[in-house]
């Protein structure tokens, strides 16, 4: 689906609606409180069609995984957010139970998705029945095979389970969630096994993701984006100065807007903890990714530059221990940047044996000087700590 065209169609059809009550007092959130996000113009609801499912979903969905209180979910539904995502495995089922209770009578007015990590037909179907009970519903709109990162993770009987569930009316659409979409094009773009794909996607990722998403969307498969704020944000503790900077300067909102405004993305499911975050994220709908956002994200990338090697090759041959510096730092990026720890570990093992034996901390002074300011010694030490 061409999301740009879709958005234009919806705009002309009057389907971009102001969120009544967002940014207003409502008996709970007066303008006099924090944060500043509430003091702006009311957010607008922006809808897109989720591929061949035909479901009209708000571009801002709701990831319920870490929500602190059910009232946040209830309020999001009241404000018009209409896509809610949970999973069988989140908090051992407690999350599904909270989502079901929070949506209550509004359940049929929203698109509800859950997931199962089970590895065979019988276990999947058993999980689905449990999910329906916890969510207090007769059906889920989208049921994902959870976290399938390799083609071999998916078997024919798992697809069969989804088809059976469809026939039974327990699910409306079949989906798959993945952190490695480019590896899953056989199942998604070629076999067209799913109605919807839930994929990691954010501004910090390799641009090859754009091609993979385009290939999937071309088949009519709906694309939902997760981890849209980039995982690195989440792993920072609130006491970390970088975390505070990102919170303060609106980089998270910019990151969300970046994803929402990319082609082929129907909706997003940022995890939302509280009312404040909901209010902030609502501002991403109906707002273009502007020059100011570009600056914020560029600044963030600049901030992480000391951590990331751009593979210029100027350091090769300068390590007194004979280590392949650029290759090692590239491999470290798989783990730190793209969270592909398994892949990084495999690649590290392919390096000559000395890479697992040398410890950079043993050298009195590092002979490698990066012209772009990458902190080579500490980054190499980190790679050794993680993989060696």
């Amino acid at each position, binding site marked *: 689906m061409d999301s740009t065209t879709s958005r234009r169609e919806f705009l002309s059809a009057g389907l971009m609606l102001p969120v009544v009550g967002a940014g207003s*007092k*409502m*008996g*709970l*959130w*007066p303008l*006099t*409180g*924090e*944060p500043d996000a509430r003091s702006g113009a009311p957010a607008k609801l922006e809808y897109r069609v989720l591929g061949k499912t035909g479901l009209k979903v708000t571009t801002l969905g709701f*990831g319920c*995984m*870490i*929500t*602190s*209180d059910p*009232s*946040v979910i*209830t*309020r999001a539904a009241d404000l018009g957010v209409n896509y809610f995502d949970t*999973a069988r*495995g*989140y*908090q*051992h*089922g*407690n999350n599904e*139970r909270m989502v079901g209770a929070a949506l209550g009578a509004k359940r049929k007015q929203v698109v509800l998705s859950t997931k199962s990590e089970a590895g065979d037909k*019988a*276990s999947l179907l*058993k999980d689905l029945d449990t999910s329906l009970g916890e969510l207090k519903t007769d059906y889920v709109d989208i049921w994902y095979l*959870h*976290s399938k990162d390799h083609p071999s993770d998916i078997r024919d009987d798992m697809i069969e389970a989804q088809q059976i569930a469809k026939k039974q009316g327990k699910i409306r659409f079949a989906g798959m969630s993945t*952190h490695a979409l480019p590896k899953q094009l056989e199942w998604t773009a070629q076999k067209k096994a799913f109605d919807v794909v839930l994929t990691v996607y954010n501004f910090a990722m390799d641009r090859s993701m754009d091609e993979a998403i385009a290939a999937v969307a071309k088949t009519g498969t709906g694309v939902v984006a*997760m*981890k849209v704020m980039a*995982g690195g944000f*989440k*792993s920072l*503790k*609130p006491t970390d100065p970088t975390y505070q900077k990102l919170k303060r300067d609106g980089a998270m909102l910019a990151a969300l807007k970046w994803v929402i405004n990319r082609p082929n993305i129907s909706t997003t499911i940022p*995890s939302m*903890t*509280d*009312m*404040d*975050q909901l209010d902030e994220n609502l501002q991403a709908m109906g707002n273009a990714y502007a020059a100011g956002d570009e600056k914020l994200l560029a600044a963030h990338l600049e901030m992480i530059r000391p951590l990331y090697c751009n593979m210029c090759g100027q350091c090769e041959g300068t390590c007194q221990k004979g280590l392949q510096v650029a290759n090692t730092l590239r491999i470290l990026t798989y*783990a*730190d940047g793209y*969270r*592909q*720890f*398994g892949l990084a570990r495999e690649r590290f093992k392919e390096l000559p044996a000395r890479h697992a034996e040398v410890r950079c901390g043993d050298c009195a002074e590092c002979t490698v000087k990066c012209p772009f300011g990458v902190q080579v010694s500490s980054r190499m030490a980190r790679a050794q700590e*993680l993989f060696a």
Partner: protein
Amino acid sequence: MRLLSLLLTIACAAGLAHAQDYLDCRFAPGWEQTGAKRLYTPDNLYDYKDGGAEGYLAFSFVRMESMDCKSGKDTLSIDISDMTDADSAFGIFSANRDLRLPVSKIGMGGQIEAQSASFAKGKYYVEITELAADRNADESATMQSLARKIEGLLEGQVTTPKTLEWFPKEGLTSARLIPESVLGMRLLKRGYVAKYAQGQAFVVLEASPESAADVLKKVRDRFDGATDAKVGDEGFQAKAQYLDGICIFRKGSYVAGYANMADPAKAAELAVQLATRIP
């Protein structure tokens, strides 16, 4: 300097060796290790726990040691997480436990199920998850055996956090640590919440009475029509759209109260009782 370095190395090695002692498949008869032990940190936990990693990070996760075991066609994994302190370890246990099942006396609290077990002791949170060929098989004896052995080897607190004792027991359905945004409000950063058949109570500890007073004022500003309530050092009550009848007060460095009550007066009545239990 060299001596100090040597001593530190020995201390680290001893610590590591001890840390690995409690990961042993042979604690359950008939089980043996398969594959290498694994170590996860906040940087690579996503690789193992997917989106569920966020739930660990929210509770001050430091590191996790994992091991897979097998017995015939059955496999199980043991995950032992260092959660910084006992509050956080109990916090993640109480967030993940099955609310419909009783809590067993293992460490600060635990649950043994047919094919899984979990408990918290000191700063450690332990999970044992079996993937049995027969998903209906009752493997609770194996779960019990592993959990008890591991608990015996781990050091740390076995009593539940004292804050939980302040909540009334009558009608209590669950009590847990909310790692951020109590009642869905970022101002109420981290605290314990007790859920009842009707309503919920909470206690948040601030750094000082002054910061607690500042938080209370900001929270009050968010509620239309809030009126003073004679609770603790200062307090208010209100009727809110999503939290129904509320009463929130400050006592010393604590901000606490009741929400989701039928009316603010009832919330205030219960808040007075809660205030008397807070030191």
